[in-house]
């Protein structure tokens, strides 16, 4: 199993998992009614929220009406919201690139060689068990409160799911396909490139997607601690100025960019893994 992000931060992951496990089957996507069914709960919540505030059931400064949040978002947009989103996105991109690259290399080494696995895997499993926030003080001490500590924290978050996906992907390659490779007299390098890498790609992608979603979570953790820009900074700013609308606006944006980046990754995954023979691969 890949690193379970739920252990670290609860909220966003179950939704994504559900999205993957119950991905619509072809005939389901064709049904126009069912396709929009998922919009009912959020719309209901929005309407209820709006109603609750308008009717004075809850205080406006604790739960701003959805229309207030929207107004705040538009207001922020004119005051450089883009720089916040960009700052966070760049951090996630840098941290994810760093963590995923290292994880691809170590994961492949561990998955390809029993010796390397015996040597490294126990340590990585122990490191994986460390809660993300435990790294923060150390990173602050070592790297200061600038970008480096944030990017390293995000890289740590992205590392483990990718590492798990890559190592299990390379470890669990079908022996029968390997044998075909041997029959063709492929050397070790050609075997990795032509048989092992493509065979390991599905779990690698699962790892990359989990890693990316963890990168977003670790980004928030990093920015909550010290930042002058970014979505995490907006969250802190909203709390400090008692502006629940800003907090909610930041949360909405996090959901949006997280979903957007995951969808992009999923798109690449589906293109590259078109060959997979799964029960809903028909489209």
């Amino acid at each position: 199993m890949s690193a379970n992000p739920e252990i670290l931060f609860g909220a966003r992951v179950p939704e994504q998992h559900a999205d993957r496990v119950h991905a619509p089957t072809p005939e389901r996507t064709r049904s126009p009614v069912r396709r929009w069914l998922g919009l009912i709960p959020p719309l209901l919540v929005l309407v209820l929220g709006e109603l609750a505030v308008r009717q004075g059931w809850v205080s406006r400064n604790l739960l701003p009406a959805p229309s207030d949040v929207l107004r705040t978002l538009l207001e922020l947009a004119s005051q450089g919201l883009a720089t916040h989103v960009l700052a966070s996105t760049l951090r996630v991109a840098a941290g994810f690139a760093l963590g995923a690259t290292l994880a691809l290399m170590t994961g492949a080494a561990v998955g390809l060689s029993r010796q390397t696995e015996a040597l490294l895997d126990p340590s990585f499993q122990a490191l994986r068990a460390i809660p993300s926030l435990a790294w923060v003080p150390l990173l602050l001490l070592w790297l200061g409160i600038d970008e480096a500590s944030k990017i390293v924290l995000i890289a740590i978050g992205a590392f483990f799911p990718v590492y798990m996906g890559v190592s299990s992907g390379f470890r669990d390659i079908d022996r029968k396909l390997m044998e075909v490779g041997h029959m063709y007299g492929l050397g070790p390098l050609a075997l990795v490139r032509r048989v092992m890498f493509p065979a390991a790609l599905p779990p690698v992608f699962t790892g990359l997607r989990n890693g990316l979603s963890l990168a977003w979570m670790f980004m928030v953790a990093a920015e909550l601690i010290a930042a002058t820009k970014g979505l995490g900074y907006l969250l802190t700013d909203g709390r400090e100025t008692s502006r629940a609308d800003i907090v909610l606006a930041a949360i909405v944006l996090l959901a949006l960019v997280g979903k957007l980046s995951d969808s992009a990754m999923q798109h690449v995954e589906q293109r590259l893994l078109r060959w997979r023979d799964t029960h809903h691969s028909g489209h």
Partner: protein
Amino acid sequence: MTSVLEVNIQSKYFGAKQVLSPLRVAIAPGEVVSLVGASGCGKSTFLRIVAGLELDYAGNIQLNGQLHRGRSPAVGFIFQEPRLFPWLTVAQNLAFGVPQPSMASKALVRELLDEVGLAGYEKSLPKELSGGQAQRVAIARGLFTKPRVLLLDEPFSAVDAFTRMKLQELLTRIASHHGITLLLVTHDIDEAVYLSDRVLVLEANPGTLREVVAVPVARPRERTDPQLATARAQVLSALQRAHAI
């Protein structure tokens, strides 16, 4: 030296267990030879040794009169399952033997697909094929490197009876067309008799050659030929003597 393949095995062990004892098999060019015997009699191991997939054994193999050890492009292997690479198209699977497809390899792919009755399937993915189609692609892939000897490990055991008969006919036709020598392992006595010039009956623990049943029937063969029924009875009683059944 008239044999295309001469296998001389002294012994083969898996750990402390001896799976093959002295065993000598010589196969003439263009001949079709089957290995039958109880499970665990070492027939698949024998085939894997010939294929060069199993290197830890005592003995030697001569290919065209030359001592040979390990993999050779002159020897092809068709597995029990198609074992196509799911991420490659049918054409790419066929041409897996060449790193870069050329005009010549593309033409050969077309020709072979045509021969196994799958013309136009070049761009299909393995998941889009039925079991029988996939195994036909596997046969075409086995032929792509133009081997002199094709080894088959229970090649049709995973398909239904009708598909199996069609594939057997296809294999016979292709083998004689390309002049390929076939050595196959099978559990199916009818298959062994229908396809082979000789059926080698192995005895287990440790595996060794017990009897050889010749099937002197000209091709193309009729499945209802009484001579095949006679040969079938001979193989059956040989298997009984070998304690396989």
